[in-house]
């Protein structure tokens, strides 16, 4: 749909009809044929001119009814064409580009719709999205057909809509948590070595029995009273979970779904999850700490902004340097023909 399209076949046919009509008029000298002749003479320029005029005045918009949706659930895309003019066209073509930015899938489908006189046409398209990611809809080119079918006038527009597709909510991690708890235990040990992963929420006066490490020395010096930091009641358990986004789309999809289900379960079990993934574009790891389920969707939304890459092992070599505090982490990746979970120890 790059260029304005001309239909030479229809033009030729019209010219033939015109000539036939002209011959009939010359032969019969009938007023009826004269009427046809007049109309056939003024129709083509009028048709093309009015089509150009209408195409420039049309207003387009794209909307996703829901900002985010789940896999396999119907998500509606609204395509709106508003015609403020008093002309009609029977055929408007919009090249709808549908793209999953995460998997870098893209293709175009041509939508045809009528342009009604001085009114708005809305088309609700039920989209079925079976792969998670960030789905972007774009229309860059529209084409309007003139009355006589000679030309499709092209116009560039730029309208977009996006929706997020998250893994299905009913997917649950059915694996054994004991395999994973091995990783969690490692985390606890690191905590014993002095690494604290809690957050300060309040400051109060010292009560005998409080840990010395919680004393707010600065404030205590100021106030001349021992003050203790009140830490957020964090779970005693935390998990670093690395999502491996390498390989084939179908494999990554199952990895993402498994990660989602696993994280969801962990959060439900009051485990703080540190979700980590590799950002190929920035060349660094991205990390999100997840305490609640609401944060999970946001984190995955951020994850979908990256692109998949080739080999996670190359990436994981950097892991110890970036996360020295970690002694182990859980890798969710595609292994032995299916998505699975693997505990990785770091020395």
């Amino acid at each position: 749909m790059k260029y304005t399209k001309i239909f030479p076949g229809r033009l030729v046919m019209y010219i033939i009809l015109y000539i036939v009509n002209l011959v009939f008029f010359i032969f019969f000298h009938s007023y009826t044929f004269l009427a046809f002749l007049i109309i056939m003479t003024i129709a083509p320029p009028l048709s093309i001119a009015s089509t150009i005029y209408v195409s420039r005045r049309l207003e387009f918009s794209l909307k996703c009814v829901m900002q985010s949706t789940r896999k396999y659930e119907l998500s509606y895309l609204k395509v709106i064409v508003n015609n403020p003019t008093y002309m009609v066209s029977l055929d408007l073509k919009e090249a709808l580009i549908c793209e999953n930015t995460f998997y870098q899938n893209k293709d175009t489908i041509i939508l045809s719709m009528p342009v009604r006189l001085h009114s708005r046409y809305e088309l609700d398209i039920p989209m079925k999205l079976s792969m998670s990611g960030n789905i972007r809809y774009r229309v860059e080119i529209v084409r309007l057909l003139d009355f006589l079918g000679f030309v499709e006038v092209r116009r560039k527009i730029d309208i977009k809509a996006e929706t997020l597709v998250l893994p299905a909510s009913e997917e649950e991690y059915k694996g054994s948590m004991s395999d994973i708890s091995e990783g969690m235990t490692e985390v606890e040990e690191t905590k014993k070595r002095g690494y604290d992963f809690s957050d300060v929420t309040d400051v109060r006066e010292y009560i005998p029995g409080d840990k010395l490490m919680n004393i707010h020395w600065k404030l205590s010096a100021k106030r001349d009273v021992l003050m203790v930091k009140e830490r957020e009641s964090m779970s005693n358990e935390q998990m670093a979970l690395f999502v491996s986004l390498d390989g084939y789309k179908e494999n990554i999809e199952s990895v993402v779904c498994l990660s989602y289900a696993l994280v969801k379960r962990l959060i439900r079990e009051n485990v703080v999850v540190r979700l980590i993934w590799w950002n190929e574009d920035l060349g660094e790891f991205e990390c999100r700490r997840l305490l609640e389920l609401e944060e999970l969707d946001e984190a995955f939304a951020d994850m979908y902004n990256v692109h998949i890459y080739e080999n996670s092992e190359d990436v994981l070599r950097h892991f110890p340097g970036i996360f020295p505090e970690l002694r182990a982490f859980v890798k969710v990746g595609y292994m032995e023909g299916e998505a699975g979970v693997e505990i990785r120890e770091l020395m």
Partner: protein
Amino acid sequence: MAIDKDKKKAKRGFYEIYRNRRQEIEICDGIAIDESMYDLKENRLLTMFLKGIMVYLLSMGSIGTYLSCVGCDFNEIAVNVVAFVTAILCSLLYHSYLTENVGYLIFFAIFAVITYSVRTYISSGFNSILNDSYEEMSNYFDSEGMQRFAESMDDRYTAITVCACIICVVFNIFINNYISRTMRYMVSTIIVFFFNVVPFYIGLEPDLLYMIMVVAGLIMAYVIRAGQHHILHRSESIYKYHDKPSFRRRMFLKIKKIFTKKEEDENIKVLKYGNDFKALGQMQGVLLLFTTVVILIANLISPKDTFQKRHEENPFKQATVEIMGNVLLLGVGSVFNYYENSGGLSSGRLGGVGTLTFDYQTDIEVEFTPYSYDTLYIKNFIGREYIPFQNRWTQTTDFEKPSEQNEHEAKALEKLYENGGEYSAKGKMTINNKAGNIGGYLPYYSYDESTRLTFRNPREYTYFPKQADTEYTIEDYRTDSGYLKVPDDNKDIVAQFGEQAGLSRDNTAEENIELLINYYQENIPYTTRPGINYRDDFVNWFLATNKKGYCAHFASAATLIFRYYGIPARYCEGYAIPYDDVVMEGEIEENKKFSDYYQGYSELGETAYVKVPASDANAHAWVEVYLEGKGWTIAEVTPSVTDEQTLDDFWTALQRARENRSSEGNDGDGGGFNFRLPVKMTTVMNVLYVIMGIIGLIVLFFLLRPVARSVVAGYIYRKANYSDKLVIKYNSLLKGIKRRERFANKEDSIYEHINYNTQLRYMAAKGYINISSEELEEYIKILERAGFSDRIITKEEFEKVLEGLKKKGKS
């Protein structure tokens, strides 16, 4: 807009077989349009209503155009209402499969009952319309004496109204078939205009209202079809999906690739809407308004009513007026029944032409020595018996014999000559048939055999001219009673006419002949455009109704009248070359002496040996009457329109003719002889033959194409190796199964299987082939090798697989 899945299933109904494959539309991996897209239904009722309006505009427009052109009075409101209602009904029949099939039957049944009950009105109304039409046509073609069709109802207004209503319904049915489903404007144009060509040809214009209706209807059909959303699908889903390009698009891409050397992606996903009633209605409204405004403005600037008068007819149309007149007034058959000489010799066949036209090409050449101021007659046909209503004269079977011609008269004149009688003579005449009828040509009076004169095979005849003063007697010769026979169908009219002319059985033959000639001269005008006669007998119509005509009319009627009054008479045809033509057109043969070709008395004295051409303008019909003692004598009954003039002697006349030869031809005697048609009939016939030939070739092409295909396919098969042969045979089997399953649920059909492996397994599972599982595996391997490998399979493998595939299963 979530659709309940159960509701989705409930909506799938009778159209299951015909609807699109109802599945998700995959755009790319992970992104698809859900099949509930197909649940968006169009408002079929309103769409069909709008298309029905178009059908109404076209059918009522075309009927109204015709009726208003020819000036028929009818109840316009009633006809419009009937046309509108039936157009909408016809269109709504396409609402669903059920209404289309059952509805049409009911519709036709009701229509048949109504038509039968008002058949008298329809018949009378139709005849009224035809009579009005023919009246306009005969005014235009200036052809009188038209027959009228019987109108059984006195109330023309009601009869035409009823007839128009019925015709509108018929038109609605036809036009609806092409408009509602596929918007075929070309076919609709032909239906609308095929009979309206007639009033347009004769310069009539319709009322503005009907003109607007027709023009608007056709413009709508064109525009809506150009809009690419006109097809009425079985399924009511608004949207249809396709990802394969049309045949035209594929061809276009192939051709483009040849020139640009670039590969273009053929498969484009398109989600296309079918019909949108709002846009359709709005488009129709805009076009109707546009058409109305344009036509009204045009009418203001150049009024319709005076348009024809302000413009002369173009020469091309004028050239076709004669032919069209005959076609419209006599029917298409007149084109083929047109006499070759177009007003020349007709070998006794009468009528068939409303207007004589001449090509002025030389039919015969006569070489002789002019001897008299009288017209030279060369006889070709003698009509013995007249067949009424068939309008033709028949000859005797042995008409070539001298005894059936003028043998006795010739011998009597010869005897006179040999005896040196006064005013007797003998001459030699050569007649050469250049383009005339193949038949005998005899001068007066010769007893040579009237053998058939073929083209460019001249023949010399000896003749004994009878000049004004020549006296001779024939003895012992009586003609037979066949030359007195008057058909019963003609007797009354002949008697009546004879009485009017003053003939009587008490008069002598000569008196009666003279009376009739005078009566013709004074009361019956000569014309080359006597008009057409549909039903009456040729002679009766001439004598009682039309009372004008050309030589064939006069001669035929006179023959019967003379017979009625007891004068044996016979109808003759041939060429009549008047003296003026001899001197104007004759060429002197310098090397031939007068005396070698003529001896005896010459009224003109010694003239010369001249060659005179005779064309179809010289073709003539006259009467021979039998007079006692004189034998068969020419009776020239056709009135002459020449003024009396002084006749110069031969050489003076010849000199003057040579001096005047470059001047304009005379205005003709005998009425209308100078009428000349620029377009020859043969040219028109040739064009018609070419057109018919082209149509025949096209039909032959479509008939022979499947034959040619199978011949070519057979040849290819014979030349193929075993691998290709097996693939061909397999594809043929597959095609048959696909044809059987074309209406099946596509999700569980052969269409889902696209390779040999799955196809054969499917065929075996469904029972199309009956083979064991071991054979199945083996056949799959052989087929895959045949289809994809360079290694050609053996004859045994080929025959084995073929044999196995032929074993039919239960289903």
